[in-house]
């Protein structure tokens, strides 16, 4: 008895979850979210709007002038999840496993893949960029939205040793040991975004005791939301070595030149820069081209001729990266994104997305499924009409 009751509860739940009503309501909610997300892009920028509406469990609304937010609508993640469950449930329970339903099966499997792909890229996609000048060789990519505190040991003129302290560690504060050096860093403060100004009389005293920072005031600013702007993080750090302090330094992404101190004959430079990720291979920009249509300034094409050297893998070849034609190599994809410095600097967008192939498969499945399904429907309708016509004739 107990068991069958449980079963009926489960059945009830499944029935509810797979009901077409849920599908329709969820689809309608998704439409509302998409509209809201589109309109919000005008003020919040694409990234901000997508994070608020699509890549969230709940959409929050903050009344103007208030400090609290109230949830007003399920977010894209929630709706996507409901749709996914609904889709799978209806697939397992409602849809007969017959050839007649083959089309719908394919469509729904394709859709599940598509939704999965969006979740995968939301979770795993990593965006970076690679700025490279003609003749230059680069073996790292930068993440323009993330920063790191770089400590460079410039003592060896041939090779710089670099130690990067990521934002997440700086945020935590405390003392951080720098591996491979006798140094450790005491973090006094860290700001995600700041505005720097020249220190004037009457300004509060600064934490900095050494370097440029002693003459600078730091004002904390709200983190940027638009895609075109970048944060300018700043931190106050105190390098410690062998029980000795080298003073408290202000290090900021807004500062041009790095600042340096010397410990036991080693010169260490401090700077805040976009977080770098080193590649096991190197790219050299041979030539950047920017073609326009003759007699106009309408761009026709941008392309970068790049020499790729991957010693461990034994690869060495020239690659032409141009619009709609990225380089896919070792899990990363390099796209022509931008340019500068009188057409000698090329900026490549670098994307790592393990799920990039899923939409392609999904597209093929859904297209095939819809074609099969509608073709069968059309044939049925045609037959029905023929039968009716025959019946009319007989009558």
């Amino acid at each position, binding site marked *: 008895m107990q068991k069958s009751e449980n079963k009926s509860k489960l059945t009830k739940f499944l029935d509810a979850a797979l009901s*077409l009503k849920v599908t329709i309501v969820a689809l309608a909610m998704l439409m509302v979210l998409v509209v809201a997300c589109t309109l919000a892009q005008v003020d919040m920028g694409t990234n901000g709007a997508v994070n608020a509406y699509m890549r969230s469990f709940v959409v929050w609304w903050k009344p103007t002038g208030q400090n609290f937010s109230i949830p007003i609508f399920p977010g894209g993640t929630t709706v996507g999840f409901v749709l996914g469950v609904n889709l799978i449930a209806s697939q397992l329970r409602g849809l007969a496993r017959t050839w007649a339903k083959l089309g719908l099966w394919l469509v729904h499997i394709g859709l599940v893949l598509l939704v999965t792909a*969006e979740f995968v890229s939301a979770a795993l996609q990593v965006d970076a960029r690679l700025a490279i000048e003609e003749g230059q060789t680069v073996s790292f990519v930068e993440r323009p939205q993330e920063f790191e505190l770089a400590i460079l040991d410039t003592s060896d003129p041939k090779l710089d040793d670099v130690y990067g302290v990521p934002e997440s560690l700086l945020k935590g504060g405390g003392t951080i040991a720098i591996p491979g050096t006798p140094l450790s860093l005491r973090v006094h403060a860290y700001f995600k975004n700041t505005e720097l100004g020249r220190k004037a009389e009457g300004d509060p005293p600064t934490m900095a005791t050494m370097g440029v920072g002693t003459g600078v005031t730091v004002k904390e600013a709200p983190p940027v939301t638009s895609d075109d702007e970048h944060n300018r993080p700043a931190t106050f750090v105190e390098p410690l070595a062998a029980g000795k302090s080298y003073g408290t330094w202000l290090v900021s992404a807004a500062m041009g030149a790095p600042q340096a101190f010397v410990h036991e004959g080693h010169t260490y430079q401090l700077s805040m820069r976009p977080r770098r990720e080193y590649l096991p291979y190197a790219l050299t920009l041979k030539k950047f081209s920017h073609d326009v249509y003759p007699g106009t300034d309408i761009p026709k094409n941008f392309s970068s001729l790049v020499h790729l050297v991957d010693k461990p893998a034994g690869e060495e070849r020239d690659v032409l990266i141009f619009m709609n034609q990225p380089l896919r190599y070792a899990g990363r994809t390099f796209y022509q994104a931008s340019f500068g410095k009188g057409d000698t600097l090329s900026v490549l967008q670098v994307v790592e997305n393990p799920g990039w192939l899923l939409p392609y498969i999904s597209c093929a499945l859904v297209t095939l499924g819809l074609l099969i399904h509608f073709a069968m429907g059309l044939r049925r309708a045609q037959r029905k009409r023929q039968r009716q016509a025959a019946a009319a004739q007989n009558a």
Partner: protein
Amino acid sequence: MKRIDDTSKNTKLARYLPWLAAGVALIGAVSGLFGSGQVRNMDVQRFAQLPVLEGGRVKPLDSIARNSLLVIRSQQSFRYNDRTVNADEWLLDVLFRPEVADDQPLFVINDPDVLGLIGIKQSAERYFSFKTLVPHVDEIQKQSEAAHPIDAKQRTRYQSAIVNLFERLYLYHRLKHTMQIAGSEGGLAQEIKDVAAPGADERQNALRELGLFRALPGVKVSDWRSVGEALRDARAGQPLDKGLAPMARVGDAWAKQDAPAFNAAVAEVLAMARPEELRAAKSELSFNLAQPFYSGMVVYVLALLILFVSWAYKPALLQPVAFAVLLVGVFIHTAGLTSRVILQGRPPVTNLYSSAVFVGWGAVVLGAILEWMYRKGFGTAVAAASGFASLIIAHHLAADGDTMEMMRAVLDSNFWLATHVVTITIGYSGTFLAGAIAIGWTIRKHVVKDPDPAAGKALVSMAYGIICFAVLFSFVGTVLGGIWADQSWGRFWGWDPKENGALLIVLWNAIILHARWGGYARDRGIMAMAIFGNIITSLSWFGVNMLGVGLHSYGFMDKAFWALVAFGSTQLLLIAFALLPRRFWHRGPGPIAPHAPAA
């Protein structure tokens, strides 16, 4: 409704009338191709074949003439001194007889504040000559420069109007200084004589900077030279371009209105053109003359009118006639579309203008297929109405100049233009057509006295079939767009406004289909939802361009905002009508079919 009644003595008439009507419509439509092309015995149209380089592509002078006049006056020809001046004649005047062109009422000004600025009260007169505007050019330039730094979306009506007026004046100014310094003694011939004279370099530089197009062909497209460049090169010691002297003779003969000399000089100039470029330019000229989308529009109206008449009078006779005329429209529309594809060497949809032409074409073809299958006249009605509406929209979108402009770098991909853009546009066609069918169903419900239930059912099943079709194409188109984005920007889906718009269409059509399958919406609900599809499609097609954000904002437009609002309101009204019970409109006897509540 019956097919053609065989017992009637009108059998012969019924058989031949559709063919006759189609023939008349076709002849009327292509009549634009045949004309003397002469003005005062001068072969103006022959000169207009001349291939020149402008906007990155080689095109006939005729296209420059038409597009410039369209930008300046919003028309391709105008009345002056009791005769019609066409674009080609006008361009010759601007190039070689600017004193005549300066007197012609060219500049359309509607904004009362701009009129006030130049001291003119708003009246029926909307067109002003360059001569009238000359005393105010400095002030117009000053005002325009003040408004220019403001983002196009933030400008007030006056600011937009003044910037626009200045841009048109500047275009006119550039045209006048393309072949010779406007109003200079002796024109281009004198310029050639004085090529090495002191002070000529200043004039050559002015020509080089202002000249709108390059008229002197080169081996490669990038080798084409403008008159100013050729003169400067000659001054620098290079041999004089062979094309300059005949061009000067054309100008001289036009200035003197000497017909034999003009015709001889035009023949000389055309002989200098490279044969393949001249051939292409001639084809484009024929395309311009035929104006297929304009005649298509007229033919669609005709089909619609015949169909309206058929509902009141002799349906069996006139319905096939309406269908035949519609097919002529389809033929012209298709021919125009094909010519564009061949002329441009691109898939059919490359910008907002061509998307309107193509959306219309898709809807018309689908509608014609429906008519072929059902033969009830509805197919003709919705096809003709959507064809007409989309070509009207295209006509208004064409006012910005060359509709065959070059594709910006990321769009320069025939593969993706042919796959993603075409499929998604067919998806738009389908959604609009389903909406049009639903509107037809709604109107019929309220207007027709004793509706034939089978016909109503047929309309519903038509709409359902078309929605299925639209889901297929808009989904595939959207995903292909994602794949293109993955290829060019490194992400499959970026929630960009245009992508979101496409997604909304897919979602909405999916909702309609699921509502039908689940039995939550019956005929009435499905039809109301199909009409709402019109709103969603129009927003995704045009509305997102007005937001001005995202990577797809290539087709920014501000003027269409209120048109879009008006369209949306009419659709909402129609939805209300669709949901109202039948007797609301028509107080007739007879049972009212029970309707399921709409979802």
